């Protein structure tokens, strides 16, 4: 297969293993919060926008508490090779923090994270990140580069031959469902939000990483585009066979995409199981509430449809 990852094949070791990982945000520790000090400090936090939502949330939380709080609290989990895991939780539950610790954008305060059995703390952060794809909410494309340059940025840093870069871009654009010749020379500002997100996905897949980290990638696109992108993501996951970690606060998205779902609240892992098992046997009152709220919504839609049909008669 064209798009398959290197070193494919089932591994006995888990792709990612979290062992008692915790991360504490302290109100005096500006560095880990990434809050910029200064007169305009508050504005800067807001300017970071939706993507760094967790940062803003974390800092807001940190200001409330005297001695800091745990964004991720003694979390342990195992993710098998080739799984598509969705991490579900409301804002500030630690899901983005967990993801950012996985590629060392954040450093955990304790515990360890193993990638295919190797401790990531012992690896060079830059090399580690190049082994993983990373997609964020507003795509974070480089506005001064064309689509082609955006996608091939890491391959070029790795000094791939120009022809190989070009071929890879063609392959990736086709993979994410965009006509290569039509889009490769455009700039991000000439693309719709959904298209930008596809390019973000293509860029992350460029070096065929075995692990993909996706931080609410479809959070800022409209419902129809989102549905399309979800279908594409499932197809891409099937075609590439990598391990995907997908953070979302949308329960429908989480249950639709994940072959297992991690539900987090207050930095703790409440339940991690297949969507069916979670619905049948919620392990925690919070999970139960979550599912009930989703069902209530469902009931609203169903009753509206019946109502509409009846009034048609």
């Amino acid at each position, binding site marked *: 297969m064209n798009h398959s990852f290197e070193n494919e094949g089932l591994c006995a070791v888990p792709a990612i293993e979290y062992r008692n990982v915790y991360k504490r945000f302290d109100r005096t520790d*500006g560095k880990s919060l990434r809050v*910029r*000090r*200064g007169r305009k400090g508050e504005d*800067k936090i807001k*300017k*970071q*926008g939706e*993507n*760094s939502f967790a940062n803003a949330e974390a800092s807001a939380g940190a200001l409330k508490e005297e001695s800091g709080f745990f964004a991720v609290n003694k979390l342990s989990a195992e993710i098998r090779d080739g799984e598509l895991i969705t991490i579900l939780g409301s804002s500030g539950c630690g899901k983005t923090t967990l993801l950012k610790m996985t*590629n060392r*954008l954040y450093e955990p305060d304790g515990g360890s994270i193993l990638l295919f059995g190797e401790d990531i703390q012992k690896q060079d952060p*830059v*090399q*580690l*990140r*190049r082994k993983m*794809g*990373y997609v*964020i*909410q*507003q*795509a*974070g*494309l*480089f*506005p*001064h580069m064309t689509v082609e340059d955006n996608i091939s*940025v*890491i391959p070029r*840093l790795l000094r791939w031959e120009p022809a190989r870069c070009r071929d890879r871009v063609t392959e990736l654009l086709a993979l994410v469902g965009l006509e290569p010749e039509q889009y490769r020379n455009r700039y991000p500002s000439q693309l719709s939000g959904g298209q930008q997100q596809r390019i*973000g996905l293509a*860029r*992350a897949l460029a070096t065929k990483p075995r692990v993909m*980290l996706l931080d609410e990638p479809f959070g800022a696109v409209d419902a129809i585009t989102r549905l399309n992108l979800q279908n594409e993501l499932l197809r891409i996951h099937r075609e590439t066979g990598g391990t995907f970690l997908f953070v979302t606060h949308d329960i429908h998205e989480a249950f639709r995409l994940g072959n297992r779902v991690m539900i987090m609240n207050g930095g703790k892992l409440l339940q991690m199981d297949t969507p069916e098992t979670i619905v049948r046997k919620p392990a925690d009152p919070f999970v139960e509430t979550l599912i009930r709220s989703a069902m209530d919504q469902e009931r609203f839609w169903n009753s509206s449809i019946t109502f509409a049909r009846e009034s048609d008669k």
Partner: protein
Amino acid sequence: MIKFMTRHPEKIYIPLLEHIELVFLTLIISVVIASVLTLICLQNERLSLWLQQLLGVVYSIPSLALFAILIPVTGLGRTTAVIALTAYNQYLLLRNFTTGLNEVDPAVTDAAKGIGMTWLQVLTKVQIPLAKRALFAGIRLAVVSTIGIGTIAASINAGGLGTLLFDGLRTMNMARILWGSMLSAGLAIVTNALLKAAEERL
């Protein structure tokens, strides 16, 4: 005035060239120092704030006073002038450089870091290209302010268009005063316009 120019052309073009030389020399040294300071400031928020306040204080010292303070240390002449002008520029440059680089959308720099760029690659491939206008605007401001303050450098024997001005004032020679003021103002205005045009083409 025209007679003055035809009779003593060297009294006009030599100060002009001296002035340009002074500005150029100051600019190169300033940008090098400011770049180093910017790199340090990007690593350390607290130091950055502290340094900007310090440079703000330096910037608010009147130029004649700053020249006077430096004379016992470095004596009369161009060296002193370059040191003082460079000190002034640091405030303008550092402020524009740091805000320009920090203004780059964090989503973009986060993504750059997250897909595996080193901090130097994030800086050179993402932050600087995206902030180049702000960086260039800082340089333009610094150049124009150096041209202006540079005229006062003549008072400590550093040459330049200020010589023409001060000589003219001392001897009440209208032609010299006019040439001196027109050329220094003209130099500042033309340079500003040229650099601004260049900035817009970036």
